[in-house]
Structures are given as structure tokens and as C-alpha cells.
């Protein structure tokens, strides 16, 4: 397939190099044309179509949306559907509730978790190993819904955001400790030693030296925990359901089961779009940081 003529001064290359050259040329066509087309097609079909369905159905009237398909709406009801979602679905309350339970949980679990992870990573000995195993056992142990809520009731925290925050912290502490412990071990102990010799107390060492160095893995852990908490419905339903606090996803759940005789897909999908938007917007703006955070922190 090679069209260049062999220059007399150059020795005849072996078959392998020739094959490499021709495969490079094939690779050129692949990289320039076929691969991008394939990628675009994949994106459009695999992810595009489901998202398109959600978007387009959220703009239809109830009757039209009853059988959701990919066609464009005959009449655009975008504004009314979203308005209805905002009022009937109490979007602002849900947004507030989601943030209210997520932010303190994430801050708390990262702070406590990294503190504990630091100790567990640096201390040696049987006890430390046992404690570490206990700390990450939450990765495997399924949380027990009903008894958790019973406990909250005992503590007087049933149906409260504070109770929900503590439960989320309990649930995700293990994953934070798991990630961070591994990462701490890559921080040279000499840095700590140096600070200690200078007279710094452990608290100071942790906050001024360790925490900044933990940034990549903290980013990963934060993103993952945020993801899990923001999208949780199961536990939120048991802990907060029926109380005065509600989350965006809980509202979606209510909306999707609320209509009597016809699935109001248009409203459901309007809410799907609304409930997915916050994370999506944050992601679009911070995607480079987020992806590099995950890639930096996870594969250690």
C-alpha cells in the first residue's frame, strides 16, 4: 500500500517496519475520520437518546406525554410543565433540603474521616490494623434502615436534617477512610518529622501539612460522597419522609407516584431534568478538576 519509492541510500526496511508504516497510515484514517465519527455516534445513541427523551417529554402536554417517544412535541408546554414542577414539586424546598443534608455531611465525613485515616495510616501494630478493618467494614456492611431510624427516634432526631446528616456520615465514613488511608501512606513521613521537631503539635501538623497534600484524594472522596448523598432516595425516604425537610430526589419520587390514573410523564421528566441539573452544572464547570481528581485519587 506504500506509495513512496525506496530511496537507494536507505536500506530496505524489514517487514515489521513496513507493516508498522502501513498500519500507521491505516491508523491515520482511523484517528482522523472513523474514530471521531464512531465516538460521536456512540455519544448520540447511547447517552443522547435517553437524555433527549427526558428533555423532549418534559416539554409535551400530559396527553402527548402519556406514551413517551422521541417525537417533537406538537405544542410546546415547556414553561407550564416546569412551572408546575417548581410549584407542585416544591423545587426550592427540595433544593434547600438536599443542600442542607449534603453539605454538612460531606464536610463532616471528610474532616473526621481524614483525621482518622491519618492516624490509621501512620500507626502500626495489631490494634491499628484491627481498627482500620473496622473502619472500612462499612464498605461491605449494608446499612440497616429500620434500626437506624429507630435509633434516631431514641435520640430524638427522627425526621430531622441533623439525624439524616449523622446517618450519611456513618454510611460514607468507611469509603472516605479507605481512600484517604491509602493516600496518606504516600506522603513522606519526613515532612511530619520536620514539623514535629520544629515543635508543631499534631493538630497543627494535620491541618497545615497533611490536609493540603491530601487535596487530590479529598477531591475524589468529596465528589463520590456528594454523588451518593445527592441522589439518595431510599434512606432519605425512611429518615425524612413525611417530615418537614425534603430533598430534590424525594420530591421526584413523590411526583412520579402521585398521579392517579395516567403517568404524568411530562411532569416526571421535567422534574428529572430539574433534579439532575445542579450536579450537571457543577460538573460542566469543574469537569477538568473533577476528572483529574478522580483519576489522581482513585488508582493508587
Amino acid at each position: 500500500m506504500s506509495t513512496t519509492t525506496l530511496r537507494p541510500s536507505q536500506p530496505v526496511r524489514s517487514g515489521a517496519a513496513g507493516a508498522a508504516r502501513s498500519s500507521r497510515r491505516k491508523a491515520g484514517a482511523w484517528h482522523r475520520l472513523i474514530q471521531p465519527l464512531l465516538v460521536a455516534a456512540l455519544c448520540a445513541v447511547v447517552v443522547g437518546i435517553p437524555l433527549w427523551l427526558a428533555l423532549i417529554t418534559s416539554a409535551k402536554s400530559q396527553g402527548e406525554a402519556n406514551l413517551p417517544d422521541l417525537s417533537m412535541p406538537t405544542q410546546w408546554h415547556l414553561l407550564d410543565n416546569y412551572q408546575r414542577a417548581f410549584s407542585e414539586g416544591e423545587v426550592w424546598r427540595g433544593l434547600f433540603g438536599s443542600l442542607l443534608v449534603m453539605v454538612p455531611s460531606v464536610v463532616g465525613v471528610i474532616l473526621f474521616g481524614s483525621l482518622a485515616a491519618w492516624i490509621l495510616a501512620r500507626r502500626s501494630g495489631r490494634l491499628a490494623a484491627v481498627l482500620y478493618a473496622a473502619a472500612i467494614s462499612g464498605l461491605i456492611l449494608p446499612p440497616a434502615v429500620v434500626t437506624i431510624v429507630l435509633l434516631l427516634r431514641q435520640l430524638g432526631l427522627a425526621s430531622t436534617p441533623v439525624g439524616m446528616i449523622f446517618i450519611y456520615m456513618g454510611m460514607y465514613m468507611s469509603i472516605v477512610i479507605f481512600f484517604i488511608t491509602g493516600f496518606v501512606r504516600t506522603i513522606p513521613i519526613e515532612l511530619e518529622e520536620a514539623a514535629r521537631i520544629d515543635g508543631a503539635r499534631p493538630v497543627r501538623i494535620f491541618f497545615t501539612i497533611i490536609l493540603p497534600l491530601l487535596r487530590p484524594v479529598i477531591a475524589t472522596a468529596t465528589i463520590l460522597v456528594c454523588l451518593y448523598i445527592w441522589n439518595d432516595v431510599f434512606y432519605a425516604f425512611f429518615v425524612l419522609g413525611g417530615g418537614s425537610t425534603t430533598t430534590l430526589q424525594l420530591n421526584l419520587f413523590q411526583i412520579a407516584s402521585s398521579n392517579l390514573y395516567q403517568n404524568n410523564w411530562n411532569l416526571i421528566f421535567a422534574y428529572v431534568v430539574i433534579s439532575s441539573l445542579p450536579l450537571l452544572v457543577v460538573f460542566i464547570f469543574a469537569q477538568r478538576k473533577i476528572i483529574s481528581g478522580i483519576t489522581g485519587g482513585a488508582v493508587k
Partner: protein
Amino acid sequence: MGTQRMIRAAAITAAGALLLAGCSAANPDASKGGSSAVTWNEPTASLKGVTLTYWTATQTAKMADQVITAFEKQTGATINTVVIPDVYETNAPTKIASGSKPDLATWQPTASMLALLQPKTGLQNLNTAPWLKTLSPGVQQLGKVDGSTYAAFVNVPSVIGMFYNKDVFAKAGITQTPTNFDKLVTDAQTIKAAGTAPFYGAVGDRWPTQWWPQVLLAEKAKAGLWDAVNTNKDAFTGPDIQAAIVEYKSLVDAGLFNPDNLTSTYNESGPALLNGEAAMVLQISGFTSLLQSSADTKTINAKIGWFPISKDGNLGTIVPGGDSALVAPKTGNAKREAAARQFLRFWMETDYKSYVESSKQVSIEPTVPSPTDVPQVALDASKALDTAVGSMQQLAVVNPDFYVFLADMVQGTKTPEDVGKLTQAQFEQLAKALGVKGF
């Protein structure tokens, strides 16, 4: 080392304390105080500052709206409606187990379903309710557990019957509604030959399947079938119930249901019947509301008729539904409990006429006439109450998921014998948990 020992000690003590506390508090239904004297406030007495929580299912989400608005206006109380997502009968008891208790809730008023709420200690006793005597005699007998009334009926309980499309019947040349099940099957064959699906199955939602064996057992139920099952003298694996299951299966196998039976849903059955896609739908009388959501009373009266059906005749089978009654749990807060009772009084005494008219329901109080635009099918169904017999829901001591296994059978993954065995196993498990003698 010292800190670690301290940690361990603290953990153990904390665990021990909570363990002791938790074991006894595990079941929130154990009300410590004795029942306060049951007083009945005036229905419109002021309740300023009182907030009540009202749980209801998605199917009954808007049922009480009119009453709530009127009550709030006239008493100054606030009622917080919480719609518990499907399946209500699964999610609500779970929430109660984890400690939340509403002040009012819609609940299926059968002994088996009320058992989940431990009526004797968990629900307010409504024996002295002032409006009880104004209800029709048939309804007064219902909603009881061991002789005491725990459920306040607000709507007429359902009767299982056959809704049919009059035009399709006429087209197939059927002039008389069938007078027993065999004649029904013959009519079904005729309709099939005339080109329409005889029955609409809605197996996709699973629960509509259970009406078929139940209507086939109506006469046996009258003769005491469920008493025998309740005392372990008969079972779901016994000859009577098995025969009913097998007969239902034979209808499915004979192709007498709509072609998309396996995935069709309850919501689709209403429009299907109105359009004449199918000739008949076997359903509880709540089906009328489904019809009303897509057609007006005039159309329904013109197109749809109703007749009860059973193995040997036209015996109706009563299924009090989740939309038939409310319960008032004991929350321990005397003020809210009294307010809940007041709400029920308001509904059934002060507001009943307005309620019945705005919701187009059949009245269960003989002194309050049913609105004129209630579809005829609903009126027919309520008339059948007087002679009807109780269903499994009504008469069995616990409620196994009969419909789940029946739906599996129709899907082809279980045999009739499997259905009997599995339902019986679940029945025994539940009866044992309830402490029924003989299990």
C-alpha cells in the same frame, strides 16, 4: 493505651445502654398510657394551632381534599397530607415500624390489614362514634376487629363484579347478562367469535388477577371456606381453592383475555373497556372512578353496565378497599387524638353531603342521597352489598400475596399447585406471627 481502653469501655457501655433501651422501644406501638376517655368534640369546634398528619396512598391522594379544606376553614386546624408512594401497604407499615405515626390514615378496613397496626393498642376505638348508627346496616358490620370498630368508613366498600361494554354485548348478540360462571364463559366464547377480546386482564399490575379465583369461590365463602382456612382445617392447597385457580388458568389458556394481557395495566383497562377493545373487566367497584377519569357519567351510563358473578350465580364479593375507610392511630397526644376524632365526625356528619356530592361517590348513609350524577354501575354495585359475601381480604385472618403468585402463574413461571403451596406457606407464616391458634 489508656485512651484506647477508655474508648473501648465507653463503646461497650454505650452499646449496652442502647441495647437495653432499644429492645423495649423497638415496637413503637406499645403505648404506655392507658386509653384516655373517648370524648367526641363538636365537629366544628375550634382547633386553632393544631396540626394533624394524614397519610394516604397515591390512589387516594385527593380523596379527602374537599373535606380537609372545609375542616381547616371551619376549625382553624391544619392538616398535613402525606402521600406515601406505592405500595402503600408495604411502605406505610415500614414507616410506622421506624417510629413515625400519623394522626389519621386511609387504611383497608379488613381485620387482616388492620392487624398490621395492632388495633387494640395502636388504634383509637371508634365504638362510640356518634355517626355509626346513621350508616347503612351492611357497612356498620364492617371495619371491626374482635367486635370493636377501629375503622371509620367514609366510602362504600367495593363489590367485585363484571363491568361490561353494552355495545360489544349487543354486537355479539347477547341480550341477557349471564346468571352463572359457565354461562359467562359461553358468552365470552361468543364475543371472541364476534371478534372482540372478551376479558381485559391487566396482569401487568398483578393485583387484578386475584378477583377471578375469588368470585369463583363466592358460594364456598358463604358456606364458611375462610373460617376453615383460618383454623387450618382447609388450605390454599385444598380442593376448593385449587379448583378455582385451575379454572382461572383455563380461561387464560383458552385465549379469552386481551392479547397484551401480560403487560396491560389497570390504568389501561378503563379506556379499553370504554373503547370496546374488550368486552368485560372483572373489577372492584372502585373501577368506576377510573372510568370517570376519562368519560362523563352520561357516557358511562350509556356504554357500561355491571353485574355480579360467582360460580353458581350472581353473588357479589365484598372487598373493602384502601379508599373505604380511615383509621385514627393512638399517638399518645390526647389533643391530637381528640382532633382526629373530631375530623372524622366532621367528615361523616357535618360535611358528608357536600363530600358525597363533590366526589360523586355513593352514599353510605341512607339519609343522605347519592348524587344524581353517580354512574349507574356504582349504584348497582352498592345495591349488591346487601346480599354479597366477604372476600379473602375480608374474611381471612391474614393477607398473603395471593395475587403475586397468580400473576406469576399467568406469566407462565408457576403452576396452579405452586400458587396454592406458596400462598399457603405465606399464610401460615403470617398467621403464626399474628399468633393465630392452630398455626
